[in-house]
């Protein structure tokens, strides 16, 4: 359990640090991938709804703190994202990469649409199609691409932790 928490915490912090600094230099069309969202989805797919929700909550909270507008908005979204991803995908091959990519893509679109609705639409910018083609859709594509790497890392780490725990139980 301790190693899982350590992995999740370091994952969140690394994603966040990359997102606020280095990714700024590899933007395509002014869009950068949302690694944290990919991380939340990957962990929730592999670990189920409780761990997914807790991981999503803390990832969102860190996001709130770093982005600095209000505290609680992304924590709320992250928690529900982890919860929903974890609960819906119980019966599907959870460590299949194509399943992960498909879900990353669709949840990216849903997540960013919700962010758009509360952060942008309610402030009077109602041109959804424009934002969809300019921000939401390209970001989802970019997320899916980065999910190949992140999901791979999360799966590897998960297997390793499982192995270590099995060994521990033996003795």
């Amino acid at each position, binding site marked *: 359990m301790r190693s899982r928490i350590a992995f999740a915490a370091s994952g969140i912090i690394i994603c966040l640090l990359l*997102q606020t600094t280095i990714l700024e230099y590899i933007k395509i069309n002014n869009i950068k991938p949302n690694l944290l969202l990919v991380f939340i989805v990957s962990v929730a797919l592999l670990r189920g709804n409780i761990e997914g929700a807790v991981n999503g909550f803390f990832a969102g909270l860190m996001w709130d703190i770093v982005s600095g*507008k209000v505290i609680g908005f992304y*924590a709320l979204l992250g928690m529900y994202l982890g919860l929903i991803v974890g609960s819906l995908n119980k019966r599907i091959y959870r460590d299949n990469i194509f399943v992960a990519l498909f879900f990353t893509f669709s949840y990216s679109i849903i997540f960013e649409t919700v962010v758009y609705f509360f952060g942008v639409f309610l402030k009077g910018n109602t041109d959804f199609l424009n934002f969809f083609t*300019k921000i939401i859709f390209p970001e989802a594509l970019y997320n899916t691409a980065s999910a190949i790497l992140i999901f791979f890392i999360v799966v590897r780490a998960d297997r390793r932790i499982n192995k270590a725990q099995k060994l521990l139980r033996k003795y």
Partner: protein
Amino acid sequence: MKGGRNVLHLLKKKAFLVLLVTIVLFIAIGITSRNNSKLGWFGNLFNTIVSPVQNALTFTGNKVDKTLSYFDDNKKIREENEKLKKRIDELEKENEELKELKTRNDMLMEALNIKNQLKEFDYISANIIAKDPGNWFNVFTIDKGSTHGVNNNSVVVSSKGLVGRVLVSGPFSAKVISIIDIDSAVSARLTKNRRYVDVKGDITLKDKGLCKMYNIQPDIDVAVGDSVETSGIGGIFPKGIKIGEVKEIRQVNNELDRYAIIEPAVDFNMLEDVFVLKSKN
């Protein structure tokens, strides 16, 4: 049977927990959406730990970015070019100030007791160490905080003009909301006829580094190329900081209902160093 009941119990407990966390988060959103909330210490703690790392990463990113661009060009020429560009910036700023002084001269003749408000400030130089993690907003982090004299609502400028204001300041870092962010609104005026307008960020324009000018009264004479500066209304931004120039004027329904697109004097895509204004008294 017993197992089934246990699962049901656990489910109820889980649902209850989720509900509880949701409510707590809603309260947190409510509290922190007001200015100067008391929950700031919580974020400061994390940011204090994280900001040196961000600083290092952005520094390396900058360096790599610059090294890559040296490929096709001589280093010396670059350096010289940069120096000259800086000089041009300085001169442009000076020129802008002189122009401004010229247009102001008549006004000042009438009211000799008006001081140049910007002279009442000290400049704290700061570097941008992190940007917003998402794609929607335009908030960035600088490496100076309350220990250096940066407070909430401190005004941030660059050598060319207005950048934004400080949203939250921690001990060693601060969040700055730039004028092209959707949540930013600045009371402004046209330099040539001193008529008041509002400058707001716009989400479709922010990628191009532009913003919008609203509330243009029907009788205001405005043309492309007009200079826009802060008006001093609202108490956050001091009077007379250059915001930018009118790039385009658009009619919405009829000639009286119009807005303009402003090209800020600051290039937000290239921005690296900024200055925070700190009042001298």
